[in-house]
Structures are given as structure tokens and as C-alpha cells.
């Protein structure tokens, strides 16, 4: 059992590092992205990675408290992506 738990802890730390690197690299695309679509896409990806980081944090601390923040970030991320895309398309969000 201890070997399995050690492997799981190693996987948890690795997932933390990799998802954080992924978050930073998508921020690079957010800065250099030549078109508006790339920037919206990078923001969407950053929201998804943030959900992953929150879930990993909940596993790391062993508490269920981080479930609701992850759900809230998921909903707000979808709404903000759609709002940004609609604003670029129409020049207006709620017509």
C-alpha cells in the first residue's frame, strides 16, 4: 500500500507541475496571439487549466471544499468565453 501511495503522491506533484506549466504556456499564447480568436481560445484554455489546478489542490489537501469553486469557475469561464466572442461578433452582448 505504501508504494501505491508514494506513486500517487508523485503523480499528484507531477500533475501540479505540468498543469501549471500548461497554464503559463497558454498565457504566452494569450500575449502573442495575433488574432482575437487566439486570445479568446487561450483564455478558455486557461479557465480549463484553472479547474484542473483547483481539483488537484482539493486532492492535495484532502478536502471536498474545492468542489464548488471548480464548478463556479467552469460556469463563469463558459459565460465569459461566450460573452467575449459575442462582443467581438456583434459589438454587443445582450441585444
Amino acid at each position: 500500500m505504501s508504494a501505491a501511495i508514494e506513486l500517487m503522491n508523485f503523480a499528484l506533484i507531477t500533475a501540479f507541475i505540468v498543469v501549471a506549466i500548461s497554464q503559463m504556456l497558454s498565457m504566452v499564447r494569450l500575449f502573442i496571439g495575433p488574432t482575437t480568436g487566439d486570445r479568446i481560445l487561450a483564455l478558455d484554455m486557461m479557465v480549463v487549466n484553472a479547474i484542473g489546478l483547483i481539483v488537484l489542490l482539493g486532492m492535495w489537501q484532502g478536502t471536498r471544499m474545492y468542489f464548488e469553486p471548480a464548478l463556479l469557475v467552469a460556469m463563469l469561464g463558459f459565460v465569459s468565453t461566450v460573452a467575449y466572442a459575442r462582443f467581438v461578433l456583434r459589438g454587443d452582448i445582450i441585444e
Partner: protein
Amino acid sequence: MSFDIVATYAVAVFLFIGAIFALIGVIGLLKFNDPMTRLHAPTKVGTVGIGALLLASILYFDTFHDGSIHELLIMAFLFVTAPISSNFIAKVIIHQGTCETPPEPVTECTWSTLGSPNRKSDVVEALDHTPE
């Protein structure tokens, strides 16, 4: 080998899968060279990457704490909303003309997202072709 040990190994495997897919998605986002091509890489993160991380979370809390499947709610929400937001981003890219022009459709009208009422000729053309 009891169930706990198998579940712990499964948590590790799902964590590795999620991390690998997150990295694959961001490499695709950085390395592809066309906006419409870049659109398809992060969808893998949204489905498989986050799905694997949430599965690992479900298994972890089922093994070490009192289990529940709350995380399925996040997974279902992400799976439902990912195509919608991708569709909106694709619309933005098409309307700004920053990608290759999509091929002409077989009918005489243009693509429905491009045939906006701002283009008077398209509307008039479409009205002319409506069957009486």
C-alpha cells in the same frame, strides 16, 4: 491485492493521463500556425485531460474519504459547454477572415454564419431563390 491498492494505482494513472493531455493541448496551442488549426488542440484538454483529473479525484475521495460523485457534475458541464464555446470561437475566426476561406457550399447560398443581414446581396439572392 485489495481494492484500495488498485484504486490508488488507478488514481496515479489517471493523474498522469490528465497531465499528459494538458501538456499536449498547450503544445498544440503554441505550435500550430493557423487560427482554425489551433482551435482543435485545447479541446483535448477540455475533455480527456480534465475528465481524467476529475476521475482521479472521484477515485481518490472514494478510497481515502467517504466517496461521492460530485465531480461528475463538472465533467458533464464541461462536456456540454465545450462545443458551444468552440463554435463561437470558430465564428469569430471566420468572421474576422483570419483563417483560410472555407470551401464553397454545394447550394447557391453562402455558409449560414457568413450570410448575415449586413450583406444585402446575399439576403436578396436568398429571397429570390425561395420557392413560391
